[in-house]
């Protein structure tokens, strides 16, 4: 309601009243309707109101300075006062506003406020509002100002508070605050980055720091980047310079600063490079000089460095002066040392030198002094010792030390050594000269002196050896007479050799002469008179030689004469020879006469003896020697005569004996009959030995000695048999006969008593005088006895004959006996051989027949077994389903069937079961008969077997109301080693039989341990433990006749019982066979009407490998190897290297027992799972149309691994259906060879569908025929992969077809002729 715009005007009478006639009317009634106005009311004249009105007009026009004054009284005065107040308040307000504006705008005093209005109400509110407005505007600004002040002061942490009190700023102010804050943020970030870079680069020296520009924008970014580029450039430059200076610091002067730079850095760079160049030049020069002076020794070199100044110049100068100094010094030193080396010790180093060189100089000078002193001293000693021969001189060098002292000492010791050596040699030679050869030089010496010493010593030794040798030879030859000795002096020469040779030749001459003489004497002594002394000799020796030679000649002629006579008489037998020796006398002549006499005597006697001897030799034994002789020759004569007489006698008896022996032996030959031979012997022998009675007794074969002697032949025995003395054929033994046989010795009875027995003839009889009993022996065994009796005595010759003849008889008899025995054996064996041959022929023929039959049987048996096996399988196969169905019917689960029908079904089931059982039994039996029943023994607890039979048969027994007991003996082993199945089978059979045939009572199974000794079976006898499982029942029993046959196949105790009791009758025979396989047997006992007992005996431990389980029956069949390995078609033939990866790499987690050999895989599964193939292939669905399910499985497996889901169609038609049903398929793998609708046709059909026209199709075909590809492409396939499929190839093709943008296909994929636009149907 305020109207501040209304001006308060002074009443101005000049103003036309009509100026605002309406205003009067429109004057605010509120103010005019004051109640006190009413008191003045009506008399206020208009003139009085004019100033008020004009003031009001002025007020209204905005002049707040106007006041109304001088208005009279009453209401107009009051109005004027009010008006003035209004104007004043307005003016105050306006002035305050102006002031505040001025303060704020002009002076920036933002804390200025409008002072309180004198008015109230609206005025106060207006002022407050205005102040608040200012406040609201100012406070953010002051915030901003504060922040900016802080920023200006470098404090970037301050932020504008976007809240004013509790209230959040809004609108422009909020934006202002935010903008400032963002600016500060950026600044902060920027400065932070810059600071960091600056700190890193500038302070810490970490070059390469970069300011982060993230979050910066606009100029900040440019600035930061500029800083970064500056920092990086600086970094590069500084680094490069640093690299170069580092290299320089390390001595590498080859580097140059190469970095780009400008301005000061460029200068720096150039300076550094120049520095490096100069340094290099300087270093090169210095190096060259140092190398020349130091290494190569070329003194005088100077460093030439151009363009250097300052320190470098000084340095160069120094180096040069150093080199110069060094050169002069070294040259001086070299000069002196050269002089020293050349033996001139007078030179001294004169050059100026300092430091070490000075030391060197003085040292060399001292050295030269010393050398000089030393050499003069040594020279003196050498002269004294060497030239003047004053041994014992010593060098005296004062003030030397070290090597010089050693050298002096050495010279002295040399002089000393020489002295002692020369003295020693002199001593020895003196001794030799005096004839004393025992001395040797003992002094130590070396070199030439040593040679001299050795030579002297050798000389002394040789002299000694020579003297010894000569002494030895002289002693041997002269004293001991050992001729032939020679002086052996080795290694001597010259005079010594001549001397030795002379001594030796002397000794040799003497020796040969003496030896020759000795030889001749020895020859004469040994009887060789042919030798003469022929050695050259002189003097006495010559006289000795001729004497000896004469003696030898005389002896020689005498001995040759005597020898001749002796040879003629003694050796050649020319008796009568006489020795004639001419010119001998004395002893030699007497000797010759004696020899001649001896020869003539001998001749007569020997001729007489020779005559007799030759007569004897000619068989004339009648002569005797008659010449008169004496002594030994007389004895000889008598002996010869006696000998001749004896010879005469002996020869006669021997002749007789031998001729008779030979004769009778010849007679006996060729006889085979003993009696004949005995007769022959007696008839010849008896008269031969002048016997008149003979008997021959033959010992029986194999009779003990002395017994069984049988009379087989006699001589003169037929005369008188009455007395019965002669032994009959059966007489055991007879006194002396037996004794002779036992004693194996001849018994001779002389002077037989008169009544011993009589030898009679037709005229009379008389007792014999003597009897002889001869045992016939062969190999110390008496074959028989011969008794002979004679009226006269048996002569020695006869007895000797008998003794010899008995041996002959023994041999003959034995031969005859042996012959006859051999003959009988031979004939017997011949007979037997014939018989055998006959038998063998028979056997052979029957054997052949048997073999034939056996072969037939084996074939038949195999046929039978095979037939049975096949038949039973064939029979069982339909039965299996029949049984199930019958069982289902009998169960009648739905209750459809009547009880009759259920009964029928049950019957069918039961009969079928029986039939199956029968078939099983037959099969078992045929297996056993064919030897194909396997036994698999293993450890088997007895309780397991018993539990089984308990569980199986107890319910049956209870059903039938029978008792059923199982008893186990105490010592039964708890564990068996046997075939559980087979054992159960036997027990099952026995127990079910027992139950079947028992109507009342019970069945008992008893397990006991028995001894295995009494069994026939080897397995039972040798078993450690034998178990007996006895099944005993109280059933109908079996008759004894039947009991024998119940184990035969198809037998029951009664043919009729089968009707009553059922069963096949095979059970027992199977059980018996199996018991045999288990190494045991079954024994049955029974009594009709009482019961039966079947006992199974088995070894507790089945010996290993009993019926040698058919090859490999025990071996485990390779786990899970499918019946046939089924390779993909031609998989073996198509194996490009590196194409088929090991299947394990893909399907490695498969059970290891499953061989993975037939499914192809990829070696690069990882590659197909990652990258582009991973993106493209994973999650795809594709269709495989192929009727080869193995291939499909293999592909499905591999594709599944890379994330592709496979749908399957067996035929082309199905493929179409599947494609129709599943529009999400993105590719088709189409086998070409499919039945019904082949691949080409199917592809064409797919292409015929507009929805599927662009579906990628890859054709697969088993035969990589040349035309296949074209045919497939022509039919509409996009690509073609040959079978067997190379997975990697297939995957790359699939990948390219599914993602054609990236056309970097496998290299082996040439672009297809028909460009397709396969739509990617994701």
């Amino acid at each position, binding site marked *: 309601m305020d109207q501040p715009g209304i001006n308060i005007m002074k009443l101005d009478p000049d103003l036309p009243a009509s100026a605002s006639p309406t205003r009067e009317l429109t004057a605010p009634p509120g103010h005019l309707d004051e109640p006190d106005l009413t008191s003045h009311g009506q008399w206020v004249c208009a003139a009085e109101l004019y100033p008020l009105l004009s003031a009001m007009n002025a007020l209204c026009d905005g002049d707040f300075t106007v006041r109304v004054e001088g208005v009279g009284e009453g209401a107009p005065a009051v109005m004027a006062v009010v008006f003035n107040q209004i104007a004043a308040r307005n003016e105050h307000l306006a002035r305050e506003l102006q002031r505040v504006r001025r303060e704020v705008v002009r002076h920036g005093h933002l804390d200025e406020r409008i002072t309180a209005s004198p008015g109230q109400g609206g005025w106060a509110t207006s002022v407050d509002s205005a102040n608040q407005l200012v406040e609201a505007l100012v406070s953010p600004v002051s915030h901003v100002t504060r922040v900016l002040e802080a920023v200006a002061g470098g404090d970037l942490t301050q932020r504008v508070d976007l809240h004013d009190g509790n209230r959040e700023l809004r609108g422009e102010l909020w934006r202002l605050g935010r903008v400032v804050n963002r600016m500060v943020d950026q600044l902060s970030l920027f400065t932070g980055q810059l600071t960091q870079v600056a700190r890193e680069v500038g302070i810490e020296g970490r070059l390469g720091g970069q300011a982060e520009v993230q979050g910066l924008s606009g100029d900040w970014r440019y600035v930061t980047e500029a800083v970064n580029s500056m920092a990086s450039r600086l970094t590069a430059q500084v680094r490069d310079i640093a690299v170069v200076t580092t290299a320089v610091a390390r001595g590498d002067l080859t580097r140059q600063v190469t970095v780009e730079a400008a301005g000061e850095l460029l200068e720096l760079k150039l300076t550094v490079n120049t520095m490096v160049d100069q340094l290099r030049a300087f270093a090169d020069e210095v190096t060259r000089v140092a190398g020349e002076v130091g290494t190569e020794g070329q003194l005088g070199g100077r460093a030439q460095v151009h363009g250097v100044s300052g320190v470098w110049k000084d340095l160069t100068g120094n180096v040069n002066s150093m080199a110069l100094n060094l050169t002069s010094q070294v040259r001086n030193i070299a000069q002196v040392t050269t002089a020293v080396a050349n033996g001139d010790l007078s030179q001294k180093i004169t050059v100026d030198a300092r430091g070490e060189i000075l030391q060197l100089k003085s040292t060399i000078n001292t050295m030269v002094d010393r050398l000089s002193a030393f050499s003069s001293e040594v020279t003196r000693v050498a002269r004294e010792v060497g030239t003047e021969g004053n041994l014992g001189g010593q060098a005296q060098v004062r003030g030397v030390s070290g090597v010089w002292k050693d050298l002096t000492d050495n010279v002295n010791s040399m002089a000393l050594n020489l002295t002692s050596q020369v003295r020693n040699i002199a001593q020895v030679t003196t001794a030799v000269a005096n004839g004393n050869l025992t001395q040797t030089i003992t002094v130590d010496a070396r070199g030439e002196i040593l040679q001299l010493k050795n030579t002297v010593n050798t000389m002394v030794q040789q002299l000694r050896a020579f003297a010894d040798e000569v002494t030895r030879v002289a002693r041997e030859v002269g004293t001991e007479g050992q001729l032939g000795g020679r002086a052996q002096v080795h290694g001597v020469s010259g005079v010594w050799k001549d001397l030795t040779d002379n001594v030796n030749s002397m000794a040799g001459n003497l020796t040969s002469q003496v030896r020759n003489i000795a030889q001749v004497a020895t020859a004469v002594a040994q009887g060789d008179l042919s030798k003469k002394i022929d050695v050259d000799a002189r003097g006495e020796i010559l006289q000795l030689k001729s004497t000896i030679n004469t003696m030898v000649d005389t002896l020689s002629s005498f001995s040759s004469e005597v020898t001749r006579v002796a040879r003629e008489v003694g050796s050649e037998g020319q008796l009568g020879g006489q020795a004639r020796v001419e010119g001998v006398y004395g002893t030699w002549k007497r000797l010759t006469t004696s020899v001649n006499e001896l020869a003539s005597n001998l001749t007569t006697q020997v001729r007489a003896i020779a005559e007799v001897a030759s007569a004897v030799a000619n068989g004339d034994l009648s002569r005797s020697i008659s010449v008169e002789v004496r002594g030994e020759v007389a004895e000889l004569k008598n002996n010869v005569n006696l000998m001749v007489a004896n010879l005469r006698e002996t020869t006669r008896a021997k002749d007789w004996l031998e001729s008779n022996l030979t004769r009778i032996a010849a007679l006996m030959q060729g006889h085979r009959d003993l009696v004949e031979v005995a007769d022959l012997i007696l008839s010849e022998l008896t008269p031969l030995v002048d016997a008149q009675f003979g008997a021959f007794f033959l010992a029986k074969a194999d009779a003990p000695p002395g017994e069984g002697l049988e009379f087989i032949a006699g001589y003169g025995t037929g005369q008188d048999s009455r007395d019965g003395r002669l032994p009959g054929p059966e007489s055991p033994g007879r006194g002396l006969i037996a004794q002779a046989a036992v004693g194996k010795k001849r018994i001779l009875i002389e002077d037989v008593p008169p009544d011993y027995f009589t030898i009679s003839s037709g005229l009379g009889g008389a007792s014999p005088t003597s009897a002889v009993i001869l045992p016939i022996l062969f190999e110390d065994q008496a074959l028989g006895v011969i008794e002979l009796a004679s009226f006269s005595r048996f002569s020695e010759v006869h007895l000797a004959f008998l003794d010899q003849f008995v041996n002959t008889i023994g041999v003959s008899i034995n031969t005859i006996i042996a012959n006859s025995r051999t003959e009988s054996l031979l004939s017997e064996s011949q007979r037997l051989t014939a018989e055998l041959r006959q038998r063998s022929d028979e056997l052979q023929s029957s054997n052949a027949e048997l073999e034939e039959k056996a072969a037939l049987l084996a074939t038949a048996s195999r046929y039978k077994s095979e037939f049975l*096996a096949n038949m*039973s*399988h064939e029979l*069982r*196969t*339909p*039965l*299996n*389903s*029949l*049984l*199930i*169905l019958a*069982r*289902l019917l009998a*169960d009648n*689960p739905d209750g459809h069937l009547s009880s009759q029908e259920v009964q029928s079904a049950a019957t069918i089931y039961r009969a079928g*079961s029986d039939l*199956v059982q029968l078939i*099983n039994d037959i*099969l078992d039996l045929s297996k056993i008969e064919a030897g194909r029943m*396997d036994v*698999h023994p293993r450890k088997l607890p007895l309780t397991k077997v018993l539990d089984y039979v308990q569980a199986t048969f107890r319910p049956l027994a209870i059903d039938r109301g029978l008792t059923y007991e199982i008893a186990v003996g105490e010592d039964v082993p708890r564990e068996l080693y046997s075939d559980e199945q087979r054992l159960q089978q036997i027990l099952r059979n026995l127990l079910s039989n027992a139950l079947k045939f028992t109507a009342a009572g019970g069945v008992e199974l008893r397990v006991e341990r028995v001894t295995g000794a009494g069994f026939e079976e080897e397995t039972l006898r040798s078993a450690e433990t034998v178990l007996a499982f006895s099944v005993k029942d109280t059933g109908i029993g079996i008759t004894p006749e039947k009991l024998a046959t119940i184990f035969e196949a198809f037998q029951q105790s009664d043919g009729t019982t089968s009707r009553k009791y059922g069963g096949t009758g095979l059970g027992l025979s199977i059980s018996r066979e199996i018991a045999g396989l288990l190494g045991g047997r079954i024994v049955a006992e029974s009594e009709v009407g009482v019961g039966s007992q079947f006992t199974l005996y088995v070894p507790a431990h089945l010996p290993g490998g009993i019926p040698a389980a058919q090859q490999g029956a025990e071996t*485990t*069949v390779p*786990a*899970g*190897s*499918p*019946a*046939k390995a*089924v390779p993909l078609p031609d998989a073996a033939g198509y194996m490009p290297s590196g194409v088929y990866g090991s299947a394990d790499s893909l*399907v490695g987690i*498969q*059970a290891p*027992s*499953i061989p*993975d050999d037939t*499914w192809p895989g990829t070696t690069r599964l990882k590659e197909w799972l990652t990258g582009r193939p991973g993106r493209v292939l994973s999650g795809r669905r594709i269709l495989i149309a192929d009727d080869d*399910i*193995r291939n*499909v*499985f293999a592909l*499905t*497996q591999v594709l*599944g*691994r890379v994330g592709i889901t*496979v749908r*399957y169609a*067996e035929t082309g038609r199905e493929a179409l259906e599947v494609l129709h049903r599943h529009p999400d398929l993105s590719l088709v793998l189409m086998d070409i060879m499919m039945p019904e609708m082949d691949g080409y046709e199917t592809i064409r059909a797919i292409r015929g569908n507009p929805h599927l026209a662009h579906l990628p199709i890859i054709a697969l075909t088993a035969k990589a025929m040349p035309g296949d590809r074209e045919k497939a492409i022509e039919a509409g396939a996009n690509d073609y992969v040959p079978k067997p499929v190379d997975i990697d190839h297939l995957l790359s093709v699939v990948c390219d077809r599914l993602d054609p943008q990236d056309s970097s296909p496998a290299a082996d994929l040439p672009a297809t002729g028909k460009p397709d636009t396969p739509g990617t149907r994701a």
Partner: protein
Amino acid sequence: MSAAAPEKASILIVDDIEENLVALEAVLGPLGQHLVRARSGEEALKAMLRQDFAVVLLDVVMPGMDGFETAASIKRLDQTKDVPIILLTGNDAPTDYAYRGYAVGVADFLIKPIDPWLLRTKVNVFLDLHRKNRQLAAQAEQLRQSVGRLELMLREAEGADAPGFADRIAELERAIHSLRTQQEGAGRQRLPPAALS
């Protein structure tokens, strides 16, 4: 045999003899599941690729691909290897058949003639297993979806309490993982042969 089984499971019966298939169908019919016949190993494999099976009954003696080979192929393929297999064989089978069967990885080995009740019981065990696997799979799928949703929500709500959500998601992922391992465990589980024979 929960009455609330809404879906039928499939059982694959494989035999080359018609009668046996009839018998198996008669035995397994009362289970009320979908029975699929295969007359050979190849056919069985094809059927395996076309659909899921709770259990496979596989005759050993077949012309061509026999039971062992078929079972081995099924056990080798990743997508079919968890399907339990019961081998069926005549009673004159060599003793190593059972061993070979178990080595290939079959769950059970039954000798004909088969007791219908026994077979039905065994098959039922595998059906239960299959059902539970499917339930687990369904639950896992649900969880996966809800995790996906949560992730989506989390992404959209910027600046919200992310750690809390992340924790919850991690928890969920753990739960899914444990479910999955359970499922796999259940899939691998084979009934010990001794317990069934």
